[in-house]
């Protein structure tokens, strides 16, 4: 899909937004505004931005837990994402899911999932639902190299191929499954070759090249849309930070990380494409920086100003359809007369 000048600049702006957002998240984590697990996307930005720019805005998206980049690239307001990291009621899931479970079903982002490989069958099922309802939409399922060793990976690929479903499995191969190097965790180093076990079409792409990712996903999306079935795309990349903010990252050498930073997806795209083709001036670039920083600062201010979820909403939405007699404790039923609250809660 040929992109015009504005679209090409937008790719850079999105990557910069993700990186700035992630750096700010790390800062807020250090200030204890954010807790738990925080998996940052620095270094991998070209994949989310390249892939989502190749899809329709209503194509279905299902990802792993390193999901902030996908949320931002899908156009979810950065204020709501930051508020979710803070655990506030204005967050994308009202403070229920946190960093690993950002979602906006309205924007066809069905969520980040935090059990490695657990979301792959869900993506296959979502693809079936779209075929069942004849929507023409396809599914992008994002996973990491570490999840290509678990049973659900093969179970999902087999099923998708068997039923010929419109799903693209996008493997972000950042060479490390948490703190275990790919040579230690996988018998196959070139991950895309694993698709051959299911006779699934697969390709490998430079995950640091946003245009290469864009082109590859365009091609695979076209395949899926025209009824040629599922595919797997391996995007080779590297994450600059540890697995999560809890990772001291002693297992990776400084040399390896610094070498990877020599091929930075943002710098390469800015230098080799935007500036080289005179699509952007230095002033415009600096303007984008200012806008992005202002947006992220505003996201933090918004999160800081947002309230925590109200305690009386704790039992809400455990069930979509509460049953007769169901009481607030959400577990065993007590007769209404014995409960001092106000009756049925969903």
């Amino acid at each position: 899909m040929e992109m015009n000048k504005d679209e090409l600049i937008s790719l850079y702006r999105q990557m910069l937004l993700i990186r700035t957002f992630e750096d700010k998240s790390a800062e807020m984590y250090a200030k204890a505004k954010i807790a738990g697990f925080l998996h940052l996307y620095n270094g991998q930005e070209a994949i989310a931005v390249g892939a989502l720019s190749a899809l329709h805005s209503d194509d279905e998206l299902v990802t792993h837990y390193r999901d902030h980049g996908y949320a931002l690239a899908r156009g979810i307001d950065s204020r709501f994402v930051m508020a979710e990291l803070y655990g506030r009621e204005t967050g994308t899931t009202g403070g229920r899911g946190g960093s690993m479970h950002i979602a906006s079903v309205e924007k066809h982002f069905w969520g980040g999932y935090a059990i490695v490989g657990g979301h792959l069958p869900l993506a296959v099922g979502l693809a079936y639902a779209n075929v069942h309802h004849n929507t023409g939409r396809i599914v992008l399922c994002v996973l990491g190299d570490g999840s290509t060793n678990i049973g659900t990976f093969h179970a999902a690929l087999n099923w998708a191929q068997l039923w010929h479903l419109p799903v693209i499995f996008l493997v972000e191969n950042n060479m490390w499954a948490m703190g275990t190097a790919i040579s230690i965790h996988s018998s196959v180093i070139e991950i895309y070759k694993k698709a051959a076990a299911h006779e699934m079409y697969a390709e490998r792409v430079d995950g640091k090249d946003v245009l290469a990712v864009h082109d590859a996903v365009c091609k695979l999306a076209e395949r899926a849309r025209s009824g040629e079935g599922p595919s797997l795309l391996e995007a080779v990349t590297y994450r600059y930070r540890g697995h999560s903010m809890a990772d001291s990252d002693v297992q990776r050498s400084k040399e390896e990380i610094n070498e990877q930073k020599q091929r930075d997806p943002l710098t390469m795209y800015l230098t080799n494409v935007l500036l080289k083709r005179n699509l952007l001036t230095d002033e415009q670039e600096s303007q984008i920086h200012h806008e992005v920083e202002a947006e992220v600062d505003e996201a933090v201010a918004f999160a800081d100003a947002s309230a925590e979820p109200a305690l009386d909403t704790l039992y809400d939405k455990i069930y979509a359809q509460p049953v007769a007699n169901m009481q607030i404790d959400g577990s065993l039923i007590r007769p209404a007369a014995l409960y001092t609250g106000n009756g049925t809660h969903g």
Partner: protein
Amino acid sequence: MAEITFREALKRALREELTRDPDVVIWGEDIVAYGGGGAYAVTAGLAKEFPGRVRDTPIAEEAIVGVGIGAAMGGVRPIVELMTINFALVAWDQIVNHAAKLHHMFNGQIKVPMVMRSPAGFGRTAATHSQNFDSWLASVPGLKVVEPATPYDAKGLLKAAIRDDDPVFFIEHLQLYGTRGEVPDTEYLIPLGVSERKREGRHLTVVTWGRMLVETMKAAKVLSGEGIELDVIDLRTLRPMDLSLAMQSVKRTNRAMVVEEGWRSMGIGAEVAATLQEQVFNYLDAPIARVAGLEVPMPYAKNLERATVPFSDDVVAAARAMMTNQY
């Protein structure tokens, strides 16, 4: 009203719902070709009646449940069959981490209107194929867990489960498939989460469900001949659990017993007993008794299996002991 089997009642429920709603599909291992429709023949013939909507799947329970969840998220209403409940362990991550949690964790943005059907219980199939996970499943917020005891309940509850917007685990005791009972030809639904009094009596409240309801009813006949009248409450749904009838009953009988097939420790019986003593302690004249399965991995040998699982005679013995204050 005609008498039909539990198996036929389930099949009628499936057929009616497939007919009513084009979004209903059934997926599972060996539910189409094998033996004409399923290891326990519940889906026999349905694939022919509903082409493309009743499908065999790979033997991959984590995918059967997981793909079902994804389809349900997208507005399909899948009924997935796990060939036996023992295989649900392979899909435990999908059941507990996804089916049960998505609605709440994503703050109501996602619904999972899916039914997981599975036979449970024993039948000379040894330790890995003879289990009940009632209490495991029933302890998970977000799941609904249903286990019918009669053909009438099986049909009405399964239809309600299929129409429910939440994930429902529907447990079918495999010893019940051949049992018979009256089922009307006209359509009816039985709401989830509502227990039922299956027998009226004034001496002892028995709380039970599934196959143990059948055994308890047999025991009630024997005991009636001895002047002991059981008030039998069938839970029907294990989560959310309706103990309102059981509590009312205990207020009249002043004695309660819980009868379950599964392992006694940490069982549903323990939960029922704890809740009853919290709520109606002042009405109890005796400790709450538990009749349950013995805590051993199920042996294959006929006599050992028989000794492991409770039957009506165990209920009779426990009731006699209670009524003579031997506890």
